[in-house]
């Protein structure tokens, strides 16, 4: 009905300039005469009618019936999936991009230990274990008419990272690759330097595994905000500091999602996100941290928290080359001074997180429990005195991110360290600046959190391999913040070991060495958690660890469904 009225009005307006009244008005104007009163009233009435219609009519029916998912998150810094390590950016990539493989669904749950085919239809491995041949699914389309996915796109996606295209961050996870060859349009052959037991996990649509359109991403700068992938949603528009709009990709290879549009709002404050969830403005939240008060509020408003393992580990790396931490007694004192349990219980009481038991989190292949110096201020003071710091020392200009868990965990640790005589003078900076500064080795100990492929090899390779020591001189932006070099031999051995038990024992030995050298103090293992309005949106997986996810988001956002109108 509204549409008919609207159409009539539009017709009237369109034909106004041909009407006798309009011709008369035109004549008055040409002669310079004032407009007669009745025309003035008519004009006023027409303007009022248009405004009233605009106010009363509301959105057109098609717009009103759209299934729009409103997400409150933090604005991503880029939409190029190979260039950002920030969780806020990682969360949105999975909606737009896919990889050759995907995490498998087994018994109604998603596991991060096994894979299923995704963009690849099938694969084979050469007898010597060094050449993988992937057959791509035919007819998989890129967004916005960028054509069919081909082997060239796969080759390009990995090579841009291996060639360290400026800004790319995950090339290290692909360094096992020796060469990539396009066999035909739908077949790609990847030769490895040596057998890699977790190569199929590396090919999952996650970080380095995302496949991008060669045609679109050749211009790296432009690609940052003009992303083209093969995922269930495509990027429609970006209003900076307001929202991103994603739309359902009609020709998504696994079937069009039920949700028509995703409005990804930039909401930095968790309190604002929660109010939005309660009022129905937002359907899903990506909070900075789900602490006890957030969990309580979510429960009170009748929403649920989708809890996903293995989550991130919050931990301290101690730079063993930075004075005075180059002295193992100071590192031990540092660890004695920190009360891990108090930090965990203050931040995430009860079941909201687990006290970390190893530098390789549980759920990752190769994990063994480690021992860390217990909280003991007297021991800490004694060790500091022995190391020549009887009155403690001051760490000046210690940078910390203003986002996520960082300022909270550091404030807790700061007070504990102060009691032992270690004064930390904190400078709070933007999250991106923090990431820059820790790679310039400006902090002698680094607080860091994150998640990686659930295997000890990529985890330890990224955080404890000597090739990953950040160095502003060479531009190395690696994440070995401890500047550790003592497990390189084990990592090399582990990468070529085909026997599962032997691999496990190699990583166990690596953890024992790290325990002895005191280079890392893990605090909490925190699952990824997203509050959701269950009356508006459904997921096929159980809220309590129904899937394991590494993306800081749902593995399969296309499976989310809007179940009620607002």
């Amino acid at each position: 009905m509204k549409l008919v009225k609207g159409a009539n009005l539009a017709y009237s307006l369109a034909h106004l300039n041909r009407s006798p009244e309009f011709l008369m008005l035109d004549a008055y104007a040409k002669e310079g005469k004032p407009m007669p009163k009745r025309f003035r009233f008519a004009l006023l009435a027409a303007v009022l009618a248009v405004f009233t219609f605009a106010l009363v009519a509301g959105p057109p029916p098609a717009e009103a019936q759209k299934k729009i998912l409103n997400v409150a998150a933090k604005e991503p810094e880029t939409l190029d999936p190979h260039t950002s390590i920030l969780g806020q950016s990682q969360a949105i990539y999975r909606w737009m991009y896919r990889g050759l493989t995907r995490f498998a669904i087994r018994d109604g749950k998603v596991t991060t230990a096994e894979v299923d085919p995704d963009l690849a239809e099938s694969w084979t491995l050469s007898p010597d274990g060094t050449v993988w041949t992937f057959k791509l699914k035919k007819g998989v389309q890129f967004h916005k008419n960028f054509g069919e996915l081909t082997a060239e796109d796969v080759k390009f996606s990995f090579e841009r990272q291996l060639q360290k295209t400026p800004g790319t961050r995950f090339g290290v996870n692909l360094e096992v690759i020796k060469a990539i060859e396009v066999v035909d349009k739908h077949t790609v052959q990847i030769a490895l330097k040596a057998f890699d037991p977790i190569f199929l996990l590396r090919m999952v649509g996650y970080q380095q595994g995302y496949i991008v359109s060669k045609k679109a991403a050749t211009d790296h700068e432009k690609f940052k905000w003009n992303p083209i992938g093969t995922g269930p949603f495509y990027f429609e528009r970006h209003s900076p500091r307001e929202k991103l709009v994603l739309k359902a990709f009609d020709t998504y290879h696994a079937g069009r999602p039920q949700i028509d549009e995703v409005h990804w709002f930039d909401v930095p404050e968790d309190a604002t996100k929660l109010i939005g969830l309660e009022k129905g403005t937002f359907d899903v939240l990506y909070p900075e941290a789900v602490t006890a008060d957030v969990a309580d509020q979510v429960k009170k408003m009748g929403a649920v928290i989708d809890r996903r393992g293995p989550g991130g580990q919050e931990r301290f790396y101690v730079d063993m080359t930075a004075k005075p931490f180059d002295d193992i007694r100071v590192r031990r004192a540092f660890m004695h001074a920190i009360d891990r349990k108090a930090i965990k219980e203050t931040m995430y009481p009860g079941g909201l997180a687990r006290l970390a038991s190893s530098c390789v989190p549980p759920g990752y292949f190769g994990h063994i429990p480690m021992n860390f110096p217990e909280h003991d201020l007297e021991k800490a003071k004694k060790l500091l005195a022995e190391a020549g710091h009887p009155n403690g020392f001051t760490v000046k200009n210690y940078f910390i991110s203003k986002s996520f868990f960082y300022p909270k965990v550091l404030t807790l640790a700061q007070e504990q360290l102060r009691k032992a005589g270690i004064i930390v003078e904190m400078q709070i900076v933007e999250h991106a600046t923090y990431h820059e500064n820790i790679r310039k080795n400006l902090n002698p100990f680094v607080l860091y959190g994150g998640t990686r492929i659930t295997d000890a090899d990529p985890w330890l390779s990224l955080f404890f391999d000597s090739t990953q020591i950040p160095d502003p001189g060479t531009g190395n932006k690696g994440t070995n913040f401890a500047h550790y070099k003592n497990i390189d031999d084990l990592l090399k051995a582990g990468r070529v070991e085909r026997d599962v038990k032997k691999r496990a024992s190699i990583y166990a030995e690596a953890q024992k060495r790290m325990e002895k050298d005191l280079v890392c103090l893990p605090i909490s293992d925190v699952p990824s958690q997203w509050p959701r309005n269950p009356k508006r949106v459904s997921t096929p997986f159980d809220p309590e660890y129904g899937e394991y996810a590494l993306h800081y988001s749902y593995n399969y956002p296309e499976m989310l469904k809007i179940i009620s109108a607002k």
Partner: protein
Amino acid sequence: MAIARDASEIAPPIEQAPARPTGRLLRRYAPIGIGIVLAVAMIVIAAAAPLIAPLSPSAQYSDAVLKGPGFMDRHALGTDEFGRDIYSRIIWGTRISLQVGLASVIFGFAIGVPLGILAGVQGGRCETSIMRCADMLMAFPTLLLALIIVTALGGTLVNEIIAIGIALTPNFVRLARSLALQIREQDYIMAARSIGSSQLRVMARHVFPNALYALVVVATLYIATAIRTEASLSFLGLGIPPPTPSWGNILSEGRQYIKCCPWITTFSGVAIMMAVLAFNLMGDALRDLLDPRLKGE
């Protein structure tokens, strides 16, 4: 219809009852009294913070995270997200607010007043250059200018004082100049010049003392502005870095818990309000007392 011939026929004259001296005194001195009491209380609290505060402002009680106020409890005004005592933090925060409020006004006064008097008395190019610089600074709102300076220098107590002091300086320059322009035309200035007083002596011995009353009144009002600016900078995360408590950062940290735990923002907000009110009342009352045009009212 009778027409009244004059006003006396319309209404009988009302005899103006003389205001009772106690009521008049109360009206006149109550604001300054309240202002002084609040300001003195602030100074006492700031000076005696270690004695008054029941707990360390940075001590964390993991068994009492986000605990509500309980006036008979260990945490009378509740705790924050780290289990820190809000009452103790507000008491210690008084120090920061007062230090920044007083020191930044002294800074702005010490730089701005001599420059303003120089501009007013000297005139010419000297005046033009000083006043254009002041105009440039005045083009930025106080908070914005302080924010820019703190961002450049880094958020420490001294830098915050300098930043707010610089932001307040042009206000003192303009006021001192306008006062100097009036004073330099006075007969006693001519008399001083005629006996050979140097320009510097005229400024220091004659212009400055005569401008002092008005300057002190304005300085008192700017203490309130400085406290508010400090709280704003801390609120924006550019003030004193944690764990040092300041009212602004208590307010900022409590912002995300405003729904579940409103006591954090409420008590720190009340503290800011009381401090600003104290110095505003004092400033207004001083103006009323010292302004010769208001004498006898």
